């Protein structure tokens, strides 16, 4: 669908043919600037999308493989119910290990909420069983049914309750990033269309002369298209490189991978922004081509 050979030919294009259209400094600079600014924004939208993607994947992976069973039972039944739960878990497909958390561990978990002096012994604290799942994980629904049959005080918490909105939010942000890229491409096309249109309209006399000596419309259009495509490419290249440098110098991701510090590119993803200048060229190519043929058709 995309005529890449035509665009390649544009860059090789003969300088002489370029000259039939008078240089128009202002629209030229405007086009380069627009392409550059848009490329700059695209790099950040791309970085945002990729970073949220990474984050969502990690949350999914980390949270999906653990769950907790919480047992609330009167003092006397706690040991029996714990044993029953462990039994159920041991005989369930998709569970790697299950173990009762020690008092110390539980105390550590609760410490941020209740402080270090928590009198665990005198409080009716539920017992926690940490479950590590296999990659496939258990069928949580049937596990719940079996647990409630064997140990009425046991509740399975598979973390989906609080994981889901986080992952959803991450997915939504990624979608918005991609949408922004599309919107940026659309605005670039719109602005280049306007610039090309005004350049063509301002050169009515040139077009008349070229036609009088036998230039076909494709020839005239190509002269304009070549200019705008090359300018958009150059502008986008500068914008992309600047944005990549800016991204590179963002603070590095912290150990915990806090969201804001994780913004940026990793590994092969650094190659993705390099697609932006060719994309800008393709957008400019089609925007100018369509605008040129539209104006030429109208100009008698």
């Amino acid at each position, binding site marked *: 669908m995309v005529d890449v050979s035509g665009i390649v030919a544009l860059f090789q294009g003969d300088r*002489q*043919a370029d*000259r*039939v259209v*008078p*240089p128009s400094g202002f629209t030229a600079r405007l086009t380069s600037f627009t392409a550059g600014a848009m490329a700059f924004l695209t790099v950040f939208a791309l970085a945002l999308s990729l970073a949220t993607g990474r984050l969502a994947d990690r949350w999914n992976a980390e949270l999906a493989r653990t769950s907790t069973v919480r047992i609330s039972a009167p003092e006397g039944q706690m040991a029996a119910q714990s044993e029953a739960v462990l039994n159920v878990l041991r005989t369930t497909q998709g569970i790697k290990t299950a173990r009762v958390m020690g008092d110390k561990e539980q105390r550590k978990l609760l410490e941020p909420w209740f402080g270090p002096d928590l009198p665990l012994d005198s409080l009716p604290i539920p017992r926690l069983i940490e479950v590590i799942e296999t990659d496939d994980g258990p069928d949580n629904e049937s596990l719940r049914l079996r647990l409630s049959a064997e140990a009425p005080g046991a509740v399975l918490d598979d973390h989906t309750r609080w994981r889901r909105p986080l992952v959803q939010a991450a997915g939504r942000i990624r979608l918005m990033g991609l949408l922004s890229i599309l919107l940026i491409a659309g605005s670039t096309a719109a602005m280049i269309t306007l610039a090309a249109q005004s350049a063509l309209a301002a050169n009515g006399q*040139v077009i*008349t*002369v*070229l*036609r*009088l*000596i*036998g*230039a*076909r*419309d494709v*020839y005239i259009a190509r002269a304009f298209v070549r200019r705008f495509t090359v300018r958009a490419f150059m502008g986008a290249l500068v914008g992309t490189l600047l944005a990549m440098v800016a991204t590179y110098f963002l603070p590095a991701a912290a150990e915990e991978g806090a969201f804001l510090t994780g913004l940026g590119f990793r590994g092969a993803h650094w190659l993705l922004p390099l697609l932006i200048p060719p994309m800008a060229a393709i957008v400019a190519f089609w925007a100018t081509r369509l605008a040129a043929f539209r104006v030429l058709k109208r100009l008698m």
Partner: protein
Amino acid sequence: MIELKNAAFSYGGRDILMDMDLRLAPGSFHFLTGPSGSGKTTLMKLCYKALQPTTGLMRIFEQDVRAMDRDDVARVRRRIGVVHQDCQFLDHLNVAENVTLPVQVSERDEEIDEAHLMDLLGWVGLADHYDAMPAELSGGERQRAALARAVIMSPDLIIADEPTGNVDWEMAQRLLSLLIELNKMGKTILLATHDLNLIRTAKQQVAARVLRIQDHRVVLAGADL
């Protein structure tokens, strides 16, 4: 080359040319005269399809003008060299670039022959103005440059609208002899002029016919010319 049958042209209801029956045979040499405002330029514009007859039939190179699309028009114009009355240059290109523009836009894969270009510019007396911009040329120099541009592609038909209007008699003769040379090579020539001396001079060298526009009609002028 050019054929008009019962054709007429009017500008928004105002009749300019009527009852035109005309044939420019290949290799012929025609002068076109008539009072100012009689429609010489208009007839020439019809011939390179800048205008189209309001009624009647017109063929350029055996093609009905009404059946031509834009690309057909471009192809036809590449076979016609035109000296426009108002010259029509690209003001941002120098003389040499303007003169070679038809080669440029023809999308032929040929290089511009510098020797041929210098020859041609020499012939029209513009060798020293190779680098000049159109705005720096006098009226006569512009016309000479326009003539050079009209013939550079060695077109089948050359249409010149008063190409000697602003040059002295010596230069006029020189330009005329260029056109006569081209006619002897088989090119068809249509040349508008008010200059009866020029017509007389030409008739001594080639079998030229003289068309005159009179009362909106194109007539063949008598032998007195």
